[in-house]
């Protein structure tokens, strides 16, 4: 049977709610990078890692709570890229980092960095294609996911309730943080 089709079936149970990057991660039929998994080596060089960390911090900056870098998001993204994504997706990610290097992200002012990233976002949204994934989708999802499942991210962002003990409808209090139950993994 068509394996790409089989892949799309993965999402059907969830009513198609899986995002494109998540779906692509299941693309077991594409080449992976077993060498790097075995020796635990990084698939990113120094500059690529620096750009990735900068973008992650722009997506979730340090405010009165920790930012993406404080929460270890760059390390997390590297692990996921290496272990959970197929080679074509890794290549999309590396190309995206290369583009930002070419545009001088690391030497730009904070305002210029934000402007540059907005351009990347607009372009990604304009070029959305079914069955493919953009660098922006990947790094956005990975940053959000890495941050809001990290210990620092969870404890500073949410009312973490690993054992709620009950289920009941309630009214929201002013300024109420979202609850986090830790069941998403």
């Amino acid at each position, binding site marked *: 049977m068509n394996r790409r089709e089989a892949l799309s079936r993965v999402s059907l149970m969830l*009513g198609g709610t899986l995002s494109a990057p998540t779906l692509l991660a299941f693309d077991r039929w594409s080449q992976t990078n077993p060498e790097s998994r075995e020796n635990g080596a990084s698939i990113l060089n120094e500059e690529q890692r620096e750009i990735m960390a900068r973008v992650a911090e722009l997506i979730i900056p340090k405010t009165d709570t920790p930012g993406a870098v404080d929460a270890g998001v760059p390390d997390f993204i590297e692990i996921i890229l290496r272990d959970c994504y197929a080679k074509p997706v890794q290549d999309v990610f590396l190309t995206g980092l290369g583009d930002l290097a070419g545009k001088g992200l690391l030497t730009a002012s904070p305002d210029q960095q934000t402007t540059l990233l907005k351009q990347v976002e607009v372009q990604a949204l304009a070029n959305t294609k079914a069955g493919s994934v953009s660098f922006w989708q990947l790094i956005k999802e990975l940053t*959000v996911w890495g941050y809001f499942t990290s210990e620092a991210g*969870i404890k500073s962002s949410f009312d973490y309730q690993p054992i709620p*003990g*009950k*289920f*009941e409808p309630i009214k929201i209090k002013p300024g109420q943080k979202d609850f986090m139950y830790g069941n998403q993994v």
Partner: protein
Amino acid sequence: MNLNINAQKAQTYDAIVVGSGMTGGWAAKELTEKGLNVLVLERGYEIKHVEDYKTAMQDPWEFEHRGKITTVAAEEHYASMFFSAKEGSQLNFTNDKEHPYIQKRPFNWIRGYHTGGKSLIWGKHTYRWNREDFLANAKEGLGIDWPIRYEDLVPWYTYVEKFVGISGQAEGLAVLPDSIFQPPMAMTAPEVHFKKSVAQKLNRPITMGRVAHLTKPQPWHTAVGRASCQFRNRCTRGCPFGAYFSSLAATLPAARSTNRLTILHNAIVKEIILDDHAQKAKGVRVIDQNTLEVRDFYAKVIFLNAGTIGSTSILMNSKSARFPNGLGNDSDQLGRNLMDHHLAVGARADIEGFEDDYYFGARPGSLYIPRFRNWGNDKKRDYLRGFGYQGGASRADWSRGGAEQGFGADFKKRMTQPGPWKMSLTGFGEVLPDPNNRFYLSPDKTDKWGLPQVVFDADFNANDRAMRKDIMNDGAEMLEAAGFKNVTTYDNPAAHMGLGIHEMGTARMGRDPKTSVLNKYNQVHTCKNVFVTDGSAMASASNVNPSLTYMALTARAASYAVAQLKAKSL
């Protein structure tokens, strides 16, 4: 000589139960409680209740991949990856690469080869079948008539429900008969509104999902160590509170407390061994999955509870001069009329308002909308039978952020607050029995234990697919009746058998040995001391979740088997 006799004695029990899952646990409990020495044979590895639920108490940041399975794990779990696509539960699903099967037509064969089987990972929605479910085949001339009626099962439904513990609301509906209930779980505010609107405008009742979770444990629940649901919704990692029903948490501990239970793990049953006259089974031949050592075990009665495909495969593989096509297969019905529920079709909506409403806790379960098509006064449709829905309304959490536009400090802050309400409904449709929907054993491909691989050759038929239009449109109609916005429908054309994980049929019950494999007590017609009481016995599929009916059939068959043994009729 003496040595052999002694060895045989040591390997002889009153009863052998093949499988430790949903129905194997029940067979073990009932047979041991009625005084039999029982050997349970589990083909997979041992999982100890609570202590082996290694990931159950882990926080999200303690998972290296934060829940995502790796490309390697996805390859190993190709059948179950849509369901086990989480790092915390993948070990509770079978490694499909190690246990391969063949898809002549697409089939996701999702398995749990370990103590407790799929009772460790099931969805837990638990419903009685209704009167019509047992009459429909006869009325419509489809398949064969069930040899039993709803009334035959009522005392057994009641019996198992009390022990299982099912939270739910009594509604008095003929289409969805009430069980013995624990208190129901609560509905969210938009769900309450939805229920009211649909009742008023469309006259369709909606109830809280009936799920096998304890919400008010009774003494017989606490006696086996079970506690109330903690609303963590981490169920597929295993519940350290024993709050949802599984054989690990409930039936196996009950059986163990009789001191008449022996469980052997890593024991793959290759075939059933017949006595010299080929009238009865005398035991089973077992392959150790690790050492490949072959051993025989003997008993007066054998219960097959290896899961629909597993149990029928064992019968198929039990060939003899008397049964050249598999044990009890004079009718050529083994492997035929494979059924599931078809799903991956429904409707979704955004919900405006209810900004002040929220909820505390992670609820395992959802609303349930019972079948209303081809029922009561409903105008006859262009298809037979019907469907129900599961679904619910909840607020989006941080995970919406990946797809939401924007980044930076404001975006970050927004993700820490509850998101907008959304509602979705997923249909579960009845699949008709069809002799051409089947599986068989490969004539040439074997697994690493030398056993023939299973070949699936089944798909939904025109009737099954015809009702999917109604599932979409009726779902959208209900969401609109509640005033919800941006209503959309979906129907994945790639939906296929197996994804419902409700495999049924392939060794159906019936009155006539010429057209069925099992009689009304789940005995093999032509080999009376072999009972098959899992999904393979089903003659039709209903549209509600089947586990409760398997459990009731198992308790009923066990009671009958013991009575027959006592009367020396087996």
